[in-house]
């Protein structure tokens, strides 16, 4: 006989997006823990409030914006009381009391209570505010009333020139009304746009037929004999006839019930990092009504982050904290692209970079303070919004990129989506993500059908922008146009993965400061949530311990990606490719003969010359790898590893009639000094013997160019997804200096880079000035870095031959027979 365990009772007050999202997250991880009851004041299931504007504009129907149908509630055994308003909560007896429009009372007891009362529109306290035809713009009822009014009346006034007001005005206009927007400030959307962008917006909305009264203060609304509004009067004595007044002057956290319950409220219901109210630990609050560290968020992404944490806590996992979000606004008002984030108004001590093309309808303003980007306001072209937002969040110095900052990230070699920068103009069949072959239609469909709201969700479901990320801006635009509103809020600190809340820097610091030598000691010390991490964090932590503590920490092959575990590159059919090392790209007849013999002996189907001047043997069976390496008898090329790959060289002064330096020898010396050097990501060098630069040194992690009087060194170039030209770093005189400076830069990157961060991203993050300070200005520091690298590499094994020393588990090469 099974014991009947009584389920706990969870009651949710409010049936909006943040609350229902919390339930969805909760049901995913603990489907049977609670009996769930939901009270919603509106007689509808949960719908996407952000999409009320497209409904008003006639672009979508109410059915299309329902997020959870009536069936969802019954399928999940969630009791929904729609249309019943909670009027009282007895925290002593733990009972919720609600009334319906007919006066019927429903009482439900709770063990845990979730307050998701959202926000309420602010109504101007002017005479006439209660007249018929005076409404707010917040829910389905308001929307329906506006649609209905537009069929019977002609004139409308919208009070408020913010996002909501403009959307309401636009919708009413599209429904055939003559609309005037009344705004108390002198420019529109002053909280999201500066005055220039605000005026550009006004101009383009006027061109579409909206009228504006700026700086107008409402005095009174007057009514006709039937009690319906007939005009609006302003403080300056003017008057405007109207049949409808929509108040869209702002929203406030709805804390009426919470205050009656004597929960502490201050700009919202005050909650802790676990989303529990600070007054009563049985009561949680998420969404627009909750004030977390003094902020009540009004954007979807932070609310969904809150939902995740609250659900986790309700499920008694007791892990995960909400630590706040940074938000940006990327708004779509009637087809006009706007983006703003941070402190875009500037002010004392701030500098502005402005690009203004009023005829082309493009305006961009970047605000910089103390060499950091602190705000951005974009109008007309917002594709770089996420790039600026990232700079803003990272807080890195922009001194070194100041001259090209305005042109954004997408101006240089942005490949994979045919150069598109405006998602709206792309057809459904156009490919957005060239890495994963995802077209616009697929993304739109997934967003609509699976109810996706955030970039992360779109990545998980469609893989769009999940690989190289160069189409992130486009995906965000599609998300905005399809799901409506905002999505680009991000946690202030990006966690390494879902196993932990710590970011890469914190993990690196802890390993260094506490001398953590093993992955398991890191997981224990930093309180990892999973016993042995995941495929994302384990290779990173393995790299961090081995690079921070060379000769002491032991490499763990089971925490390496397959290529580094088998020391060859896996191919799509599970065979491998083998690239032997050829110092500086030079080879001999005997090497080539051995390679040719191996190709015949092991029936290797493809032989290819690589971009890095090496020879690639493709289609080697795993069982053959050991013998192939042995027969070739050349060192590992590490073409499979996050390590120094190739040093590409030109012919140089030994042969070339133009050559000024012996670039081939320099390349060989660099390669011999630094091969077997693992890094956060792959590392490529090139050496050219003269400024004609035949070795293409300008797009390598370190590029060396010989000139008559010495060597020029360039760093942090990249020839991949985003072609990045390397920065000139220093000019030195001797090959010994080339080795020292290159080694020091590599060691700095090895010690401070984050896993999977190429040198271009590393230098972008820390700033070129920082690297210069560490290597060019600090002579002792440079020498120490170079020595440290030499110490780390001294005596390192060749994984193709020294299996034991290189921790190569040779069992992997044999199959077990099932006889």
């Amino acid at each position: 006989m099974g014991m009947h365990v009584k389920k706990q009772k969870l009651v949710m007050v409010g049936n909006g997006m943040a609350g229902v999202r919390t339930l969805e997250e909760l049901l995913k991880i603990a489907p049977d823990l609670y009996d769930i009851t939901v009270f919603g004041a509106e007689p509808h299931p949960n719908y996407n409030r952000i999409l009320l504007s497209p409904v008003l504009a006639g672009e979508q129907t109410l059915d299309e914006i329902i997020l959870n149908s009536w069936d969802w509630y019954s399928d999940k055994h969630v009791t929904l009381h729609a249309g019943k308003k909670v009027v009282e909560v007895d925290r002593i007896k733990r009972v919720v009391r609600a009334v319906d429009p007919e006066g019927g009372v429903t009482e439900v007891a709770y063990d845990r209570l979730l307050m998701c009362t959202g926000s309420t529109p602010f109504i101007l306290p002017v005479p006439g505010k209660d007249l018929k035809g005076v409404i707010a713009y917040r829910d389905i009822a308001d929307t329906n009333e506006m649609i209905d009014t537009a069929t019977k009346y002609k004139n409308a006034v919208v009070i408020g020139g913010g996002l909501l007001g403009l959307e309401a005005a636009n919708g009413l206009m599209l429904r055939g009304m003559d609309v005037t927007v009344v705004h108390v400030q002198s420019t529109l959307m002053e909280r999201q746009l500066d005055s220039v962008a605000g005026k550009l917006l006004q101009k383009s909305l006027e061109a579409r037929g909206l009228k504006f009264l700026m700086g107008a203060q409402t005095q009174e609304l007057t009514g006709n004999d039937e009690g319906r509004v007939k005009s609006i009067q302003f403080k300056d004595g003017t008057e405007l006839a109207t049949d409808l007044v929509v108040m869209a002057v702002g929203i406030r956290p709805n804390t009426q019930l919470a205050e009656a319950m004597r929960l502490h409220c201050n700009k919202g219901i005050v909650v802790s990092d676990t989303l529990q109210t600070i007054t009563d630990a049985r009561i949680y609050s998420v969404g627009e009504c909750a004030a977390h560290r003094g902020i009540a968020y009004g954007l979807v992404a932070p609310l969904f982050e809150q939902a995740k944490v609250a659900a986790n806590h309700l499920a008694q996992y007791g892990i995960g904290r909400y630590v706040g979000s940074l938000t940006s606004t990327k708004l779509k008002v009637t087809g006009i692209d706007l983006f703003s984030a941070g402190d875009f108004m500037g002010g004392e001590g701030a500098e502005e970079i402005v690009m203004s093309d009023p005829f082309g309808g493009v305006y961009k303003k970047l605000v910089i303070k103390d060499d950091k980007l602190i705000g951005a306001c974009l109008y007309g072209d917002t594709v770089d919004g996420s790039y600026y937002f990232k700079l803003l969040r990272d807080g890195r110095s922009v001194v070194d990129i100041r001259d090209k900052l305005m042109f954004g990230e997408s101006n240089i070699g942005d490949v994979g989506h045919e150069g598109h920068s405006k998602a709206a103009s792309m057809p459904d069949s156009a490919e957005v993500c060239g890495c994963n072959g995802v077209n616009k239609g697929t993304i739109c469909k997934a967003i609509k059908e699976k109810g996706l709201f955030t970039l992360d969700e779109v990545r998980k479901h469609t893989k769009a922008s999940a690989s190289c990320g160069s189409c992130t801006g486009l995906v965000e635009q599609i998300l905005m146009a399809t799901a409506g509103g905002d999505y680009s809020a991000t946690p202030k600190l990006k966690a390494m993965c879902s196993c932990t809340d710590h970011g890469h820097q914190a993990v690196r610091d802890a390993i260094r400061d506490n001398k953590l030598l093993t992955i398991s000691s890191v997981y224990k010390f930093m309180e990892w949530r999973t016993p042995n991490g995941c495929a994302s964090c384990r290779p990173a932590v393995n790299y961090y311990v081995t690079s921070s503590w060379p000769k002491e920490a032991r490499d763990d092959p089971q925490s390496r990606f397959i290529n580094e575990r088998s020391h060859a590159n896996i191919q799509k059919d599970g065979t491998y490719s083998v690239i032997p090392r050829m110092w500086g790209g030079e080879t001999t007849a005997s090497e080539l003969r051995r390679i040719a013999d191996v190709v015949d002996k092991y029936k290797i189907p493809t032989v290819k010359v690589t971009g890095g001047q090496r020879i690639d043997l493709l289609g080697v069976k795993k069982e053959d790898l050991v013998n192939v390496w042995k027969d070739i008898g050349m060192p590992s090329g590490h073409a499979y590893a996050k390590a120094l790959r190739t040093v590409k060289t030109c012919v140089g002064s030994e042969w070339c009639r133009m050559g000024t330096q012996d670039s081939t020898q320099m390349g060989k010396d660099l390669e011999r000094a630094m091969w077997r050097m693992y890094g956060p990501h792959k590392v490529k060098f090139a050496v050219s013997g003269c400024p004609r630069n035949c070795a293409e040194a300008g797009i390598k992690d370190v590029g060396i160019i010989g000139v008559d009087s010495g060597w020029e060194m360039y760093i942090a170039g990249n020839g991949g997804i985003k072609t990045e030209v390397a920065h000139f770093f220093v000019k030195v005189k001797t090959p010994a200096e080339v080795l020292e400076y290159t080694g020091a830069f590599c060691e700095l990157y090895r010690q401070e880079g984050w896993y999977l961060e190429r040198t271009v991203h590393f230098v972008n993050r820390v700033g070129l000035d920082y690297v210069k300070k560490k290597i060019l200005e600090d002579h002792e520091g440079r020498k120490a870095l170079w020595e440290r690298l030499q110490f780390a590499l001294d005596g390192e094994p060749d994984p193709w031959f020294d299996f034991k020393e290189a921790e190569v588990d040779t069992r992997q090469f044999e199959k077990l027979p099932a006889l």
Partner: protein
Amino acid sequence: MSEWKKICLVTDIPVLGARRVARPQGIDVAVFRNDQDGVFALLDRCPHKGGPLSQGIVFGTSVACPLHNWTIGLADGCAKAPDEGCTPKFSVHVQAGVVHLDATELATLALDQRAVVAGPAGKEPVTAVTA
């Protein structure tokens, strides 16, 4: 009655790793070992694009496919949501530190699944475009 076929010792499989078991016919079977000495067996073929799961990183009771990083549950062979799809699983019997697989399953299960072909062998002949 199923006949259990002896494959290897548990200790022949690396902790948080896998070995490949060759069959007379059909795609290999991957046998995994987690850090609790749990042993699992799946067809060595990711439901996504056929990647050899035996080559992936094992964590918890999952393996990450080495080709495109799908997470596959070791116990059921199914992809973690939102990805969809399952690879056939094989019964495992561990006795006194020896790993056994079911003889019938080895001989009959998932023989219809095809291995991925790469390189010149997998190429369609190029036909000239005629005007």
